[in-house]
């Protein structure tokens, strides 16, 4: 019998999803451009994001667990 994987925070996100990346003050709107899987320390899932504001268009990595769904 197949075991159902326990979902962790952020497991619901997929490549192409719009998300909010929390900043100490406010949030940054971003889109997920690559899913690198559970490559972080202790198996944290890592995603490559691209900022969607004129102030932040570069890509950067983020753990999936800290992201929030876009409004």
């Amino acid at each position, binding site marked *: 019998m197949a075991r159902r994987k326990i979902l962790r925070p952020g497991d619901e996100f997929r490549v192409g999803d719009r998300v909010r990346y929390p*900043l100490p003050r406010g949030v940054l709107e971003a889109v997920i451009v690559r899913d690198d899987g559970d490559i972080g*320390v202790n198996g944290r899932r890592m995603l490559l994001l691209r900022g969607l504001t004129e102030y932040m268009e570069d890509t950067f990595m983020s753990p999936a667990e800290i992201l929030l769904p876009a409004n």
Partner: protein
Amino acid sequence: MPSRALRHWQTRSRKVLDEFEAAHALVGGTPSARRFARQQIAQAYVVLLCSQFQRFCRELHTEAADGLTSGVRAPLDEIFFKALTVGRKLDVGNPGPGNLGSDFSRFGIPFWDEVRLHNLRNEERQRTLEQLNRWRNAIAHQDFTHPALAGDEEVDVRQVRKWRRTCETLAVEFDTVIRLYLRSVLGRAPW
């Protein structure tokens, strides 16, 4: 303990690259058709080797950035982690010595100096990696005019195997150098 990145490289990437070896060995047909097909496979093998090695380097960088910031209190941890990975060259560029040095130096380490210091033979391996990336670009862009290629437009699969062995050795060297460096900075094993 090796990084997850190295374990992925030594399992998943090895399997993918071995499939190219198998395909190269299975080519049949007339001698000229076989020669043509093998050359195409060898060229694809170069591009694939480079892309797999790029993924390893990128994953090692991510894991190292995560390890370096995992003991930092919130919200500084995510601020530092983002700063270490933003606009990273390995996300868009080849795993050439320049891009590797640029990205890994963000951790405060003179990357290639440390790699060469760790093993004197790594200087030669660094040059070999540069050569592999030059061939990768020549194949991907079908532009063989770089003077270093000396007019060659065909790549020998035996050469690709040598490049692969260099990447396999450098992967272990990079893993060790970064792990030792992070341990010295953090005062504990990073993973």
